[in-house]
């Protein structure tokens, strides 16, 4: 087991380093953040000064090694636009994204689990068919489109703040987070409902449920106390994986609702050619993904010895 963990860890480190190299090549070798683009002209002297200021006059391998070194010491540099500390920018955006992910997960687990249980318990009833239709639609319709529809129809009414709104309008975070969280939660809720329905149906066929019913327990106790605990396991695994996706991939949703999290920050940085911020945020997303998939692999190896040996 120890050998497997070490090998997997080495693999993860290698992937992260290769990813930063790829990112560096894309952003600094093949692209030039200070070049004149379209309507923006940058005089050559200014470009030279900017390059020197950001250490881009050095050789490329040197620049990359410097970046890698700084990354390990936690120094992400300053951004190109307003010379703000990149770590500060991320520190400001991250709590908003974390809140969004948290609210989205609470929503999708609540909706998904309840819908899944109802569909399983009243199998082939009207409610089961309804859940099947809704989950099919929720999985099929892209989150992007759902976000557009919600933004254009619901935002600005009732407790949902309008999008876009003026900077002066102050909205408490729990109202601001609602619509993007619902948008993100819809797909996951559908997946969870399907998972829950499937595993609940399986558990309901087992002997210990029959025993519970045979000794005269009420149906409510049987389902909520006995069956629920065992059928929730696949949902827990799924939620664990989706946390990473939510933290790294709320790009479109945050941009649609102009929600100031890391996704929106990344989109803004990409439009401004703000390379230090792009480097930092994408590295962050890669780190989360690599870390989570490593944990999953190690957990599986721990549970199933056959994987360790292959």
């Amino acid at each position, binding site marked *: 087991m120890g050998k497997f963990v070490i090998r997997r860890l080495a*693999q993860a480190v290698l992937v992260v380093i290769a*990813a930063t190299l790829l990112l560096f090549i894309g952003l600094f070798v093949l692209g030039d953040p200070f070049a004149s683009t379209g309507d923006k002209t940058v005089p050559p002297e200014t470009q030279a000064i900017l390059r020197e200021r950001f250490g881009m006059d050095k050789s490329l391998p040197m620049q990359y090694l410097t970046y890698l070194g700084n990354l390990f010491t936690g120094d992400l540099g300053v951004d190109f636009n307003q010379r703000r500390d990149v770590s500060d920018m991320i520190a400001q955006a991250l709590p908003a994204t974390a809140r969004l992910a948290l609210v989205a997960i609470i929503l999708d687990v609540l909706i998904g689990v309840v819908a899944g249980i109802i569909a399983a318990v009243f199998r082939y009833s009207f409610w089961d068919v309804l859940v099947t239709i809704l989950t099919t639609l929720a999985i099929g319709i*892209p989150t992007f*489109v759902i976000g*557009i529809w919600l933004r254009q129809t619901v935002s600005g009414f009732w407790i949902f703040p309008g999008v*876009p709104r003026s900077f002066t309008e102050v909205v408490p975070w729990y109202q601001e987070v609602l619509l993007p969280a619902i948008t993100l939660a819809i797909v996951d809720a559908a997946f969870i409902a399907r998972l829950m329905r499937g595993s609940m149906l399986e558990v309901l066929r087992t002997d210990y449920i029959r025993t519970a019913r045979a000794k005269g327990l009420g149906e409510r106790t049987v389902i909520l106390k006995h069956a629920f605990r065992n059928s929730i396991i696949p949902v827990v695994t799924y939620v664990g994986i989706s946390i990473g996706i939510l933290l790294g*991939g709320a790009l479109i949703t945050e*941009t649609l609702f102009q929600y100031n999290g890391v996704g929106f920050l990344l989109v803004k940085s990409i439009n401004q050619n703000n390379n230090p911020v792009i480097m930092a945020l994408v590295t962050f997303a890669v780190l989360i993904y690599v870390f989570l998939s490593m944990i999953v692999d190690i957990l599986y190896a721990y549970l199933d010895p056959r994987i360790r040996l292959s």
Partner: protein
Amino acid sequence: MTTQPDPADLSAPAQAVLVESASDHPGPLPEDTGGKKGKNRSQFGDFWRRFKRNKLAMTGLVVVAIMVLLALVQPLISPYDPYDQNLLNALQPPNSDHWFGTDVLGRDLYSGMLYGLKLALIVGLATMVGSMTLGVVLGAIAGYRGGFSDGLVMRITDLFLAFPYLIGAILVVRTFGSGVFQIILALVILGWPTAARLMRGQILALRESEYVEAARSIGASDTRIVTRHILPNAIQPVFIYSFTGIGVAVVAMASLAYLGVGVPPDTPEWGRMINQGIEQVQVAGKDFLWMFPSGAICITTLAFAFVSDGLRDALDPKLR
């Protein structure tokens, strides 16, 4: 695997199914069944019968067929040039002249939607073909060869899968400049690792199977074993996945365009239209600007997803 029932215990049609499911590859049937026309149940016939029963999948197939047809005849049925501006006629609601209205530059939205449909299908198909080809070839090499090639290909897929799909696509398009080809390139680069992994898993499972061992023992070459014996059996999941992949590519292109990455700004593309409709035009009552393109994206992805689900159910009844 379930145990195979003894053919002698079954009725004639069931026997036919059993005999056919035991034959390895699709394609022309052995000649001895050719004489009995009408009772001849080809593998494709079986598949088609199962597919037809699935109403959702059939609806999806019909919608896909209509979309492909519309895209093919797009230049003939567009009432206006989708690029033609007419500022005096801007932001017209849908009417008899302009079925879907006009955009902020006075361009006919119905013509633009058709053009966008063609773009979406081209990008979706090209992405699918590109990433499937790359994925199948590399996945097959990795799975069959094992050892160093396997390690190399798998580490490369690890690397590309570590980037979130959309973020990776944006970075690639940004690096190579905007344009339809660049979008396809980006989506292929980000899409092939999934296909390669699927393929590799299939090959790994089949490599040690008895019929492959039999082929090897009569001296078949590696190339022949992979292309004639393993691929026909291993390709199914990749084939099914590829249809979902078309929908994913269509949404990805629209999302990129919405974020201002990808196609040039004046291209009549669904994501661009949505961006214009909800970000640039903030006038009440102009909802048709975003409704048509977002609806079109929704219908496209649903149609391909339904076809993909139908394929899965019809090709492999065990999975249901």
